[in-house]
């Protein structure tokens, strides 16, 4: 198996700089997920690793070997394309077998792996159809199958689950994870689905505009976003972000409230300094729902609207002209205009330097 | 589909032929480059007949023939048009659409315009059906300077003298004969000439199926032809400019219709000054002297003649010395009328030779051969010129005879 190492990766499309200098190490057998907003360079990065785009600058090492100039076919990788990229003129069976066939595998082995993949992905009934006769989700599964049967050292997935329905997505996600563990393969997986990223990743790489915003284990990234971008990007709904000011003692002033802060967690600047405050929706707890935070501040506001999700509701409310969102456990019906009281959990707030947008949290 | 559309349009136009014409009579012809002459002829014919005659040129020749033939097949024979003599005239006359001109010819011969020999050229089974547009004899045109340079004092009178002259010319750096094969028709020139110089009767026999193309007569002509090529007497048959070697004085002699004198004159070789003419001598002393004659007839529709008796006056004019002189003055073409002035020195030279030697007139092979065989056979002769070897000569003779046989078998 193989580790993957990116050193000072840069990608230029003419004058447009798509990747601006990325260093990354993916351990052998690690499941690494790239997340980031649309256009941030996830696919580009993946395609550079796959050998489909030239590496404008920097080095790519796979399994200890620099492979900058090694053609795709010799990099020991398999890739699932965002657009499936199936061979339109071949049946599902031939799509799955193509790579092995041209590699000169023997028939029995081809059949064994192909049947295995077909069974795992539920492709059995479609083996003789052509891609044009499949639904989007079925095509995506063929694309995954095609990568699987090659049993490569490194798997590259470009948003492979985006077209599946929720149930199938969960199933396939599990299958991919299981497969990876079975094969012990190194996986690089692109998604912009948070849940996917969280559930699958050993390591999450958050990309922003051609650069790495943060790398870390899923919880790490969730709990300790290194900057405002990651804070806003990871977690749904997006974290409440509001201007604040450092008060006397370990408190933060915002919305006319004084929110006490745990000692030793942040490098607090001098009182009176403007900072940016981040609070996740689940950390604004409506009174009477869930556990009332001990340290914190009370706030009340008029409900603007709410989103009912079943096991919880998102309450959007107004405090002095600022809109906040709170997560209501075991929800009850809420009317617009109703005034509710909440408590903000002071131990779970995030603080960022307003200027640099980086976290004030101590490592 | 090209062909069918063409045929269809030809047939449609033919049907509307007479109705659509604003003129009394249209005179169709395919001879290009003689426009001035035709204009003069048509003007004179209109005046003489009081008819409103318009000229209409149609080229190329195959289209022209298609047009005339489909018109006749469609029952709308043009009133006046040019045609070819020999077998071409025979099959035209067979349609019954062409006017009998016996009375006119009687008049013309009476007046001394023509002799019986010319009448014969335009007759089918003894009845004349056409009048001459022009008559051209086929002499050898020669470069007088070249002859002088080679020390040849006078044109050869016998075969031996001819060979001697050719060798002398070679010695002096000339190719003796210009012999192009341009345009797919020139192959018959030397073939015919060698046939009439060895056996004129056999030549005539070739054209009516009584003599085979692979018999001893043809064998002999082909042997001489091959031998001439071996000796280097001929220019490269692949040259596409037919008079180039004459004009640039690489070649000294050119066996061709006398009308070529006009072409050479246009390219700066003055007939009489630089160019002379003689008839190729017979190979054996006992062979009858003869000359190949090419005659272009003008024919008239029998129906039109009946409807418009004045058309006969137009015909009479077209046969007259005035018409002959007009054509001669305009385009240097000899009408064959004995009372016209020779349009150039070559024509008068040939006139003099013929007056003196009285050779037998022989219809040119092209007209004498059945039209269905014409193209196929001449291709073979051209093929020989491009590969003038003994084996190829044999192959060409075999193929010609195969074609000839299958044609006559059907008649």
């Amino acid at each position: 198996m193989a580790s993957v190492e990116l050193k000072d990766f840069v990608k230029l499309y003419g004058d447009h700089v798509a990747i601006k200098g990325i260093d990354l190490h993916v351990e052998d057998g690690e499941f690494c997920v790239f997340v980031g907003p649309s256009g941030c360079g996830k696919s580009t990065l993946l395609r550079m690793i796959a050998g489909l785009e030239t590496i404008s600058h920097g080095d790519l090492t796979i399994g200890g070997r620099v492979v900058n100039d090694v053609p795709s076919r010799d990099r020991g990788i398999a890739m699932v394309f965002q657009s499936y990229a199936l061979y339109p003129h071949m049946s599902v069976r031939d799509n799955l077998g193509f790579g092995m066939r041209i590699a000169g595998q023997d028939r029995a082995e081809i059949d064994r792996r192909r049947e295995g993949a077909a069974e795992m992905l539920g492709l059995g009934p479609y083996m003789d159809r052509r891609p044009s006769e499949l639904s989007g989700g079925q095509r995506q599964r063929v694309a995954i199958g095609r990568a699987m049967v090659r049993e490569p050292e490194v798997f590259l997935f470009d948003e492979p689950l985006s077209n599946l329905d929720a149930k199938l997505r969960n199933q396939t996600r599990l299958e991919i994870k299981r497969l990876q563990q079975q094969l012990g393969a190194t996986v690089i997986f692109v998604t912009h689905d948070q849940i996917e990223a969280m559930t699958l990743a050993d390591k999450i790489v958050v990309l922003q505009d051609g650069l790495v915003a943060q790398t870390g284990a899923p919880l790490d990234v969730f709990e300790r976003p290194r900057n405002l971008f990651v804070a806003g990007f990871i977690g749904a709904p997006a974290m409440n972000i509001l201007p604040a000011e450092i008060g006397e003692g370990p408190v933060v002033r915002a919305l006319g409230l004084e929110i006490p802060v745990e000692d030793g967690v942040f490098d607090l600047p001098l009182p009176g300094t403007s900072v940016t405050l981040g609070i996740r929706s689940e950390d604004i707890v409506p009174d009477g729902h869930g556990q009332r935070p001990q340290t914190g501040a009370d706030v009340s506001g008029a409900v603007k609207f709410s989103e009912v999700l079943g096991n919880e509701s998102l309450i959007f409310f107004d405090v002095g002209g600022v809109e906040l969102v709170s997560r209501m456990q075991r929800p009850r019906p809420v009317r617009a205009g109703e005034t509710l009281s909440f408590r903000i959990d002071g131990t779970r707030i995030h603080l960022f330097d307003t200027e640099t947008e980086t976290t004030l949290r101590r490592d | 589909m090209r062909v069918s559309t063409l045929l269809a349009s030809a047939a449609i136009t033919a049907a509307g032929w007479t109705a659509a014409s604003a003129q009394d009579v249209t005179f169709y012809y395919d001879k290009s480059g003689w426009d001035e002459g035709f204009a003069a002829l048509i003007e004179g014919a209109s005046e003489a007949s009081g008819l409103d005659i318009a000229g209409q040129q149609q080229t190329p020749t195959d289209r022209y023939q298609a047009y005339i033939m489909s018109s006749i097949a469609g029952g709308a024979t043009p009133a006046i048009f040019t045609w070819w003599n020999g077998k071409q005239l025979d099959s035209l006359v067979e349609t019954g659409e062409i006017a009998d001109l016996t009375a006119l010819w009687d008049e013309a011969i009476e007046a001394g315009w023509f002799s019986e020999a010319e009448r014969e050229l335009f007759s089918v089974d003894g009845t004349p059906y056409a009048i001459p547009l022009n008559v051209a004899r086929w002499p050898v045109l020669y470069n007088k300077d070249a002859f002088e340079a080679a020390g040849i004092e006078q044109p050869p009178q016998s075969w031996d003298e001819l060979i001697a002259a050719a060798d002398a010319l070679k010695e002096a750096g000339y190719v003796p004969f210009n012999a192009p094969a341009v345009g797919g028709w020139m192959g018959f020139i030397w073939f015919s000439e060698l046939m009439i110089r060895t056996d004129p009767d056999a030549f005539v026999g070739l054209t009516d199926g009584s003599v085979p193309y692979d018999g001893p007569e043809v064998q002999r002509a082909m042997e001489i032809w091959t031998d001439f090529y071996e000796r280097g007497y001929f220019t490269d048959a692949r040259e596409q400019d037919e008079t180039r070697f004459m004009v640039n004085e690489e070649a000294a002699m050119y066996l061709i219709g006398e009308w070529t004198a006009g072409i050479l004159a246009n390219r700066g070789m003055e007939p009489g000054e630089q160019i002379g003419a003689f008839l190729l001598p017979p190979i054996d002393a006992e062979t009858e002297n003869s000359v190949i004659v090419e005659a272009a007839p003008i024919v008239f529709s029998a129906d039109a003649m009946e409807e418009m008796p004045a058309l006969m006056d137009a015909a009479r004019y077209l046969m007259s010395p005035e018409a002959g002189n007009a054509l001669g003055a305009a385009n240097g073409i000899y009408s064959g009328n004995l009372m016209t002035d020779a349009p150039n020195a070559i024509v008068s030279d040939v006139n003099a030779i013929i007056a003196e030697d009285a050779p037998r007139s022989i219809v040119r092979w092209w007209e004498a051969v059945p039209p269905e065989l014409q193209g196929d056979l001449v291709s073979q002769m051209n093929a020989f010129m491009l590969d003038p070897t003994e084996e190829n000569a044999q192959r060409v003779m075999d193929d010609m005879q195969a074609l000839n046989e299958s044609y006559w078998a059907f008649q």
Partner: protein
Amino acid sequence: MSAPLNPPISQAIRAEARKREIAARRRSGRVALLFIAPALGLVALFLLFPVVFNLGLSFTRWQRFSGLDEFGGLMNYQRLFMVPYFSDVVINTAMWVIGAITLPLAFGLGLALLLRGVPGEGLFKSLFFLPRVLAPAAVGTIWFYVYAPDGVINSLAGAAVGQDIDYGWLFESHTITPAIIMTFVWQTLGINMVLLLLGMAAIPRDPIEAAHVDGASSWQIFRHIVWPLLLPTVFVVTILNVIAGFTAFDLIWVMANGYPAQRSLSLAVYMYYETFSNSRWAFGAAIAVMLSALVILVSWALTVMQSRVEERIR
């Protein structure tokens, strides 16, 4: 998972559905007819009528001045097989068709592969396309002199081997047809290449990328991905080439000008020769019918193959 319930669709509903479909089709059919009527009229007048006329002619005895009203039965068709040099005509036509299909396609494909994506692709494209917009008669004339004994080809070849060459490419029975075919290739190469480039441009990039990742070499990608996906274009190009090959006329007419046996150069030229030089109208019409039948047959076969292939790719 339980299967969804399938409510029964009654026979009455099915019959109704069929009726509505047919009515809808008929409505749009009538409108379509209205729109294509003028075109149909033109086709009838200038294509159908001459074709039928020609077919009729081929059964008459019309040659030279007469025979238009005499029924000749299959005489003209039998005659074709009795022509002593018929085998030459067939061989030459076959050479034309095979040469016209394979060579421009092969060279066009090669060039298309070479040129794809190189800088100046557009310039090269127009350069190779240029001969196509010249009239075949003009092209023939140019090449007649290129092949002439003192022409460019001989000069170049002569310079290469260091001695004078005056080979008559267009005057030798075994080089004339290949030489003219090469000129045809020169002329049609461009359009073949452009059509193939268009066809290639229409092939999605990602199956090719997928094949790269799947381990395929360039040749394997061409063989297994590009070629099958290009097949529909290849068929269109082939049909155009076949028709051009069967009906090749102008080039031969001009370039074989100096060559004696024009009739043996292809069926189309032979047709013209018999019709206009020999004035065998009915026979010429019969050759035209045979030629058309051949063209239609081959094109039809190719079209069938094409739709099969297209179905596989779609």
